[in-house]
């Protein structure tokens, strides 16, 4: 297998279309104008020695190692900063260059420790490689002079005194170390932090020989502004910044390219292995979603895969109060099959169902819905997209005809105005945020619509032109007011609308939004957004060039989520911002495969490819293949399943990789539903919260342990590749298959590729997708079929998928969840960078050093009124329930609004949230809850009881001794 070696061209690629030919060491090479001599040489296969250059960042020209001679020019210019000129004749290796390079290298090594054999970077060190490349044989300067290498130095009287230049190793970051004594001050880390990540957490302090890399203001990494994305570690050419896992294990020996299993960005990584031990995850430069970048989760937070709490054996228990009993796989499958059959016999065919996972692969999701449709013979399948982006599917489907984002991530490089609504990509989609920030630093303008002053609103070198800090729950009013301005001020794109949309529908919509009661001045009264801000934002979006909208759960998780999505679609159609690079409507999907799980027919009313179950032709396709008659009635959604369970008509459920008890709203209702069921089967890595109510636990496998595909937010189908054998013995798709076999189904997939072949054969938008094709293409974006053989980076290029774009009236209807004297504040929820979703994975990694508990953000004014100080325990009460957590006083939130995250089970923010939901899709209204906040003495009684209950329901019986 070996390591996947990526060529480092030294400087970024030029995007010019004019080609230039030069001669390097006698070879002709043709490259785009603007390419550096260094990159051109590398293209010709000639590698010029270098230290400060790497192709992820711009040329810097500081190491003086990449010098070349150019005929007709004086001196020895650095090849990284010299652009090619037609006819240029370059020599990369001459006597003069050899001397110079050796001399420079000698100086570097004179202030660098000679501990190569025991250095963690041994074998993976560019300094070492360059010493070899230039033929360094001797360092004449010795180590007695001033240096940064030794903690003690020789004093005037030949005694040993502390070396003031020496800085000890910084081990504060849990994932990597910074050893200043090995630093050659090439600035690669500083530039990576600035140019790639956009955090600007690093600098070079001092000057001359005093120059040192400094996180923050001479702080350690953990205290500084560092977000631990790992870009600096990747950029470091020495052992100065190195992963702790490499220090512990050693350098990797093989690597497999795979796809990250955290958020919907879908970054490509090289999983670098030694034997079956994962040494590190390194972002893959050819990954089209991330282009070689990463965040703290994907890069470092994989420790959960080998966490001690991971369950590796199937378990059964009669009652949820019993301890778990470990059983064989066969026993577990037989038990589930007989229980499900018994329940269906007793209560009817509709009495069982299942939930697919947005964390699992497309193939696994497809199999779970197939099991339910073919094996259970009903449509009782749903997925966690219900609670996040179901309004996106519905809203965009109605307006455009496809239930997905319109662009690829590269598109943002062509945007002039970016509007971010109800999303905080810097925390939840950090790699995309970095790419967006890069564009913003180039001059694109930013509009943020969010109740909270997120990192996107203001962070170094990024500042939103307009921040519309609306009251939670008033999205529709604000979005419609934007349309009001665009229509009444005549800023709409008439040619686009006439050509691509239905003009009479536009006229109807224009009349609707023009109503003075939808003007910014009117909506200001209840949204809290100054009318001038709305007008300014509307004008900027409509007239500022390519306008792109990115939105998140702050849009969808409302009682009017679907309406807001349609309102957003209307904005794009009004301004003609759809169907080309740099524009579009882009949902930022939360989970790695939430797009895929929706595509794969996880909804109770849809077969794979968003085709309604009542469509005869589609049912026929599957009936012929699966050999059973399929139900044409939509099945139950998650909330309906729980309702039916409480009523007594729904008795069994198979839940793959989702923790509905923690992630779904109104925890008490969820637990009542689960408790009412007779056979709850949880298929997961850990005994999650839902598993407390389970009768059967099937251990799951991680993304490292299986083959498959994930589909990210840009509809990109990325390969997930197995890098190690499943620790639990079976990949998730095998578990579902064996369960299906136990239920009497004739399934014989030998590999997930065969599942993908079945998907391609039955689903037109996937027609050309196969593992072989993905191998060849790297990745493709659906639709990928005869009409679009290379996939579709941007949809609706030559017309909307549904024919004409549809304008839909977006009447603002205030949510029923209202503040009043008892609950005067509005709670809204979100995420933070280091934790992911319910935290099942990230809480089991070192990421807890950044966020070990959920806190309540509250405005100083509200805090003062209630006598709350920073760090105090506070009680958070809503109509649904109460919990306690610590307060953080900040003006990031407006007065009247409080904010928290839902990463930790002992806070259980969803005890607070209500069961209001989107009118069209039942997506819960997580983002608006009327609450009261008051001082508290500590965790509530409920939370203490919960700890005990949690322990009780997670007991595993010790194995009986063998006879």
């Amino acid at each position, binding site marked *: 297998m070996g390591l996947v070696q990526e060529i480092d061209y030294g400087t970024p690629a030029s995007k010019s279309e004019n080609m230039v030919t030069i001669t390097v060491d006698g070879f002709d090479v043709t490259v785009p104008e603007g390419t550096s001599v260094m990159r051109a040489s590398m293209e010709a296969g000639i590698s010029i020695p270098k230290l400060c250059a790497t192709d992820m960042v711009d040329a810097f020209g500081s190491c003086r190692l990449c010098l070349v001679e150019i005929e007709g020019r004086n001196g020895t210019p650095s090849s990284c900063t010299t652009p090619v000129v037609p006819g240029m004749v370059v020599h990369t290796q001459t006597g003069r260059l050899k001397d110079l390079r050796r001399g420079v290298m000698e100086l570097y090594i004179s202030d660098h420790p000679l501990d190569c054999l025991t250095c963690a970077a041994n074998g993976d060190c560019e300094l070492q490689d360059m010493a070899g490349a230039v033929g360094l044989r001797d360092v004449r300067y010795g180590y007695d002079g001033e240096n940064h290498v030794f903690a003690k130095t020789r004093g005037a009287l030949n005694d040993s005194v502390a070396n003031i230049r020496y800085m000890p190793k910084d081990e504060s970051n849990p994932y990597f170390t910074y050893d200043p004594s090995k630093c050659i001050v090439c600035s690669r880390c500083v530039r990576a932090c600035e140019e790639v990540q956009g*955090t*600007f*957490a*690093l*600098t*070079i*302090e*001092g*000057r001359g020989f005093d120059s040192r890399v*400094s*996180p*923050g*203001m*001479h702080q350690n990494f953990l205290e*500084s*502004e560092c977000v631990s994305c790992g870009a600096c570690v990747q950029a470091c050419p020495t052992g100065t910044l190195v992963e702790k896992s490499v220090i512990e294990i050693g350098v990797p020996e093989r690597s497999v390219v795979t796809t990250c299993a955290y958020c919907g960005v879908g970054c490509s990584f090289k999983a670098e292995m030694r034997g079956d031990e994962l040494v590190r995850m390194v972002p893959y430069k050819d990954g089209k979603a991330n282009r070689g970048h990463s965040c703290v989760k994907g890069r470092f937070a994989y420790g959960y895969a080998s966490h001690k709490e991971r369950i590796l054996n199937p378990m059964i228990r009669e009652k949820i109060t019993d301890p778990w009993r470990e059983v064989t796989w066969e026993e577990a499958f037989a038990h589930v099959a007989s229980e499900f059959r018994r329940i269906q016999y007793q209560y009817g065919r509709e009495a069982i169902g299942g939930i697919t996972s947005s964390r699992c692969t497309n193939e696994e999701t497809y199999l779970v819905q197939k099991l339910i449709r073919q094996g259970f013979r009903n449509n009782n399948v749903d997925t966690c997209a219900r609670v996040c982006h179901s309004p996106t599917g519905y809203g965009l489907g109605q307006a455009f005809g496809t239930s997905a984002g319109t662009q690829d991530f590269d598109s943002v490089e062509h945007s002039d105005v970016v509007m971010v609504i109800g999303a905080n990509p810097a925390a939840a989609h950090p790699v995309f945020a970095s790419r967006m920030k890069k564009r913003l630093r180039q001059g694109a303008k930013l509009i943020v619509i969010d109740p909270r002053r997120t990192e996107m609103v*203001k*962070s*170094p*070198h*990024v*500042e939103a032109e307009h921040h519309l800090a609306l009251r939670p729950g008033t999205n529709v009013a604000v979005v419609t007011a934007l349309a009001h301005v665009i229509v009444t001020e005549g800023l709409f794109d008439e040619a686009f609308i006439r050509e691509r949309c239905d003009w009479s529908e536009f006229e109807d919509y224009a009349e609707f939004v023009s109503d003075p009661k939808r003007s910014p001045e009117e909506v200001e009264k209840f949204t809290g957004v100054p009318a001038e801000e709305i007008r300014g934002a509307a004008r900027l979006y409509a007239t500022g060039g390519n306008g792109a909208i990115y939105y998140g759960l702050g849009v969808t998780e409302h009682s009017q989520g679907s309406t807001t999505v349609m309102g957003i679609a209307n904005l794009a159609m009004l301004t003609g911002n759809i169907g080309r690079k740099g524009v579009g409507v882009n949902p930022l999907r939360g989970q790695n495969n939430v797009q895929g799980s929706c595509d794969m027919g996880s909804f109770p009313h849809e077969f794979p490819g968003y085709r309604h179950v009542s469509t005869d032709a589609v049912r026929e396709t599957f009936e012929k293949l699966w050999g059973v008659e399929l139900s044409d009635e939509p099945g139950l959604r998650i909330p309906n399943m729980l309702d039916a369970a409480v009523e007594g008509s729904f008795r069994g459920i198979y839940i793959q990789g989702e923790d509905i008890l923690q992630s779904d709203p109104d925890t008490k209702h969820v637990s009542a539903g689960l408790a009412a069921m007779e056979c709850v089967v949880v298929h997961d890595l850990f005994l999650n919260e839902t598993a407390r109510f389970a009768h059967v636990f099937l251990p799951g496998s991680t993304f490292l342990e299986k083959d498959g595909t994930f589909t990210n937010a840009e509809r990109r189908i990325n390969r997930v590749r197995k890098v190690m054998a499943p620790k639990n013995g079976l990949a998730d798709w095998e578990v579902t298959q064996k369960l299906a076999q136990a239920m009497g189904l004739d399934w014989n997939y030998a590999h997930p590729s065969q599942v993908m072949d079945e998907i391609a054969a039955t689903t037109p938008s996937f027609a050309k997708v196969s593992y072989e094709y993905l191998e060849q293409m790297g990745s493709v974006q659906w639709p990928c079929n005869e009409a679009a053989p290379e996939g579709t980076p941007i949809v609706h290029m030559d017309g909307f998928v549904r024919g004409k774009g549809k304008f839909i009236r977006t009447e603002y209807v205030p949510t029923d969840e209202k503040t009043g004297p008892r609950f005067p504040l509005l709670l809204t929820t979100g995420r933070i960078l280091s934790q992911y979703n319910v935290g099942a994975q990230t809480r089991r990694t070192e990421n807890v050093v950044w966020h070990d508990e959920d806190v309540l953000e509250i405005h100083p004014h509200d805090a003062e009124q209630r006598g709350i100080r920073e760090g105090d325990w506070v009680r958070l009460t809503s109509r649904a329930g109460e919990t306690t957590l610590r307060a953080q006083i900040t003006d990031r939130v407006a007065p009247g609004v409080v904010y928290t995250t839902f990463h930790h089970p002992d806070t259980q923010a969803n005890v607070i949230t209500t069961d209001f939901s989107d009118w069209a899709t039942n997506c819960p209204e997580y983002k608006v809850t009327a609450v009261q906040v008051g001082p508290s003495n500590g965790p509530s009684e409920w939370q203490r009881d919960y700890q005990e209950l949690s322990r009780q329901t997670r007991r595993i019986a010790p194995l009986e001794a063998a006879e």
Partner: protein
Amino acid sequence: MIMQAQSTEIATQTRAIVEGLKGLEGPLLPILHEIQEEFGYVPQESLPVIADELNLSNAEVHGVVTFYHDYRRQPAGRHVLKLCQAEACQSMGSDAVADRIKRLLGIGFHETTLDGAVTLEPVYCLGLCACAPAAMLDGEVIGSIDENVIDEIVAEVRK
């Protein structure tokens, strides 16, 4: 509490200075000059305020402040004496001048006398090579330093 009051005061004053200058093109250096003028040094507490106001990272401001030796990180003495240590002055005996002054004042470079009278600093070229060895006392240049001049300087700063 006094410490705290002081640092809030510094932050407030810094913000006022930044407000006045942030419209300039490349405002960071002028702001730092103005702050040094105001406080006699660049207080650490000023840096995050500057970063916030200019929308820079803390690291960037730190990088700039530490790059320029003229930005003082602690309050100086009542007088600041800079002795040129560049090539021309060295060739004219600036080392001996520096040694003598250090001995007379009882401090080294980058140090301030215990009574807070004077801070001694090296400087690399005052452009007075024709009158080397040269020095600068509180912004006034002094050329052709010999023992008499040294005594005069020391007497002046001790006043």
